[in-house]
C-alpha cells in the first residue's frame, strides 16, 4: 500500500467508483467509505485512512462465527474465528467495542458458546451481541439468554449510547412464521418506537440485527417481514446505519439517510443471491477461503455526520 497513486491527498478527495474497484482488485483489502448526504464516496484504503483521521468513535463488527461448524466449506470455523480475533488485536486503532451480529454458534451448544467466548474475549473488548437463528436452537434460547441476555428486553433487544451515538440491538430470528422472513414482532417494534422517541434527529443511530433489515432476496429468506415499520421510526434521523450479518458476504445499500450494510462471516462464505440452488455454505478453493471471510470496522467522526465502514478480509 505504498506508492500506487492512491495513497495521496488527491485520492482522498474522491475517486471514481471504477478506480475504487481497481484499488480493491490490486490491494485485495478494505476500502474506506465515507457517506455524506447519502452519497457514498471512497476515501482510500483502510490503513492509510485510519492513520490520517483521528476518529470520534471506532467500533468493530464481527458476524456469523458459527462455532461448531465443521462441514467441507470450512472444517475449522473456530480457527478462522481465531484469525479474525488476531486481526482485531492487531488493528492500528483500537476499537471502542465490538458488535457481534449473531450466529455465534452453529447449534447453540454450551460447548460452542464456551469456545466462542474463549476466543472472542481474547480481543479484550466489550462485545454487544444479538442472536442469529443458530443461537436460539435450544429450548427457550436458555443458553444465549444466560450469557448475553442480561439487561435486555423480550427476546434480547436493547439499546445503549456511546460517544453520542445511539446503538440499538434488535432480534429478528425468533417466532418466525411459515413462508416468511425475519421477524421483529409488535412488542419489539413498540419498544423501538418508544426507545427512539425524544431523541434529537441529529443523534447518529446504529441499528444492528442478524437478518438483513432490508429485503435482499426473499426467495432465500434474506429480509425481515416487518422491517418497514422499524424504518419509519428511523427515517427522521439524519444519520442511520443498519448493520447485519446472516448472508455471509458484504452488501450495502443507501436509502435516504439510512445506510444498510451486511458483513462477512468469519466461518464460511455463502453465494450471491440466486447464484446457487440454495444459500448454503459455499465451497471455494482453500487458498480463496480467507479472502471471503472477515471483519468490519466502523468509524464515526463527530460533527461531520458521516461514517466509514471498512470490510477487511482475513486474507487479501
Amino acid at each position, binding site marked *: 500500500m505504498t506508492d500506487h497513486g492512491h495513497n495521496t491527498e488527491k485520492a482522498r478527495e474522491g475517486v471514481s467508483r471504477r478506480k475504487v474497484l481497481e484499488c480493491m482488485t490490486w490491494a485485495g483489502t478494505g476500502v474506506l467509505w465515507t457517506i455524506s448526504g447519502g452519497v457514498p464516496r471512497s476515501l482510500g484504503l483502510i490503513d492509510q485512512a485510519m492513520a490520517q483521521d483521528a476518529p470520534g468513535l471506532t467500533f468493530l463488527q464481527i458476524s456469523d462465527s458459527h462455532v461448531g461448524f465443521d*462441514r*467441507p*466449506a470450512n472444517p475449522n470455523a473456530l480457527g478462522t474465528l481465531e484469525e479474525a480475533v488476531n486481526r482485531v488485536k492487531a488493528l492500528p486503532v483500537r476499537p471502542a467495542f465490538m458488535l457481534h451480529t449473531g450466529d455465534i454458534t*452453529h*447449534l*447453540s451448544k454450551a460447548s460452542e458458546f464456551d469456545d466462542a467466548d474463549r476466543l472472542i474475549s481474547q480481543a479484550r473488548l466489550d462485545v454487544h451481541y444479538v442472536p442469529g*437463528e*443458530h443461537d436460539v*436452537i435450544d429450548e427457550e434460547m436458555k443458553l444465549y439468554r444466560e450469557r448475553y441476555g442480561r439487561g435486555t428486553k423480550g427476546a434480547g433487544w436493547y439499546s445503549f449510547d456511546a460517544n453520542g451515538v445511539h446503538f440499538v440491538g434488535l432480534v429478528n430470528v425468533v417466532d*418466525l*412464521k*411459515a*413462508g*416468511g*422472513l425475519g421477524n421483529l414482532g409488535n412488542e419489539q417494534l413498540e419498544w423501538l418506537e418508544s426507545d427512539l422517541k425524544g431523541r434529537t434527529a441529529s443523534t447518529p443511530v446504529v441499528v444492528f440485527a442478524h437478518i438483513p433489515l432490508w429485503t435482499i432476496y*426473499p*426467495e*432465500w*429468506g434474506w429480509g425481515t417481514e416487518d422491517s418497514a415499520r422499524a424504518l419509519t421510526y428511523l427515517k427522521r434521523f439524519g444519520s442511520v446505519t443498519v448493520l447485519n450479518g446472516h448472508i455471509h458476504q458484504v452488501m450495502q445499500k443507501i436509502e435516504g439517510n439510512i445506510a444498510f450494510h451486511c458483513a462477512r462471516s468469519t466461518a464460511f462464505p455463502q453465494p450471491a443471491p440466486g447464484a446457487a*440452488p*440454495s*444459500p*448454503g*455454505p459455499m465451497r471455494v478453493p482453500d487458498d480463496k477461503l480467507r479472502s471471503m471471510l472477515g471483519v468490519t470496522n466502523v468509524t464515526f467522526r463527530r460533527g461531520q455526520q458521516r461514517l466509514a465502514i471498512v470490510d477487511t478480509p482475513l486474507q487479501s
Partner: protein
Amino acid sequence: MQNFLAAAALQAMLLAASPIFPAVPAHAAEATVKIDNFTFAPQRLTVKADTTVRWENEDDIPHNIASTSKLVRSKVLDTHDSFSFTFTVPGVYEYFCALHPHMTGRIVVEAATEADNVQ
C-alpha cells in the same frame, strides 16, 4: 429375589403374548422426506393414516420441522440427523423450518381404507 422372578415371569408372558397383540400394526407404512439445499423433497407428500414420515437432513445446515398447527415440532436436525412422526389423523399438515421459514412443505394424510388394513 422372588419379586424379580415374578417380574421375569410376567415379562416372559408379555413377550409371548406380543405376537397376538402387536404394538405396531403389521401394515404400518413409511415415507421419507429428504432435506437438502434448503428444500423439503418431496415438498408435498400424500400418505395414508398411520404412516410414519421420516425427515432426513442431508444439508450442510441444520433445519427442523414445525407444523403450523404446532402438532409436529422436531428438535433441530444437524447434517445426517433424522426425525420421524406417525400421522394417525387424516388431514392436511402444513409445516416449515422454524430456522429458515421460507422452507415449507405439506403432508396430506388420507384415511386408511379397508383394503389397506387387510394385508
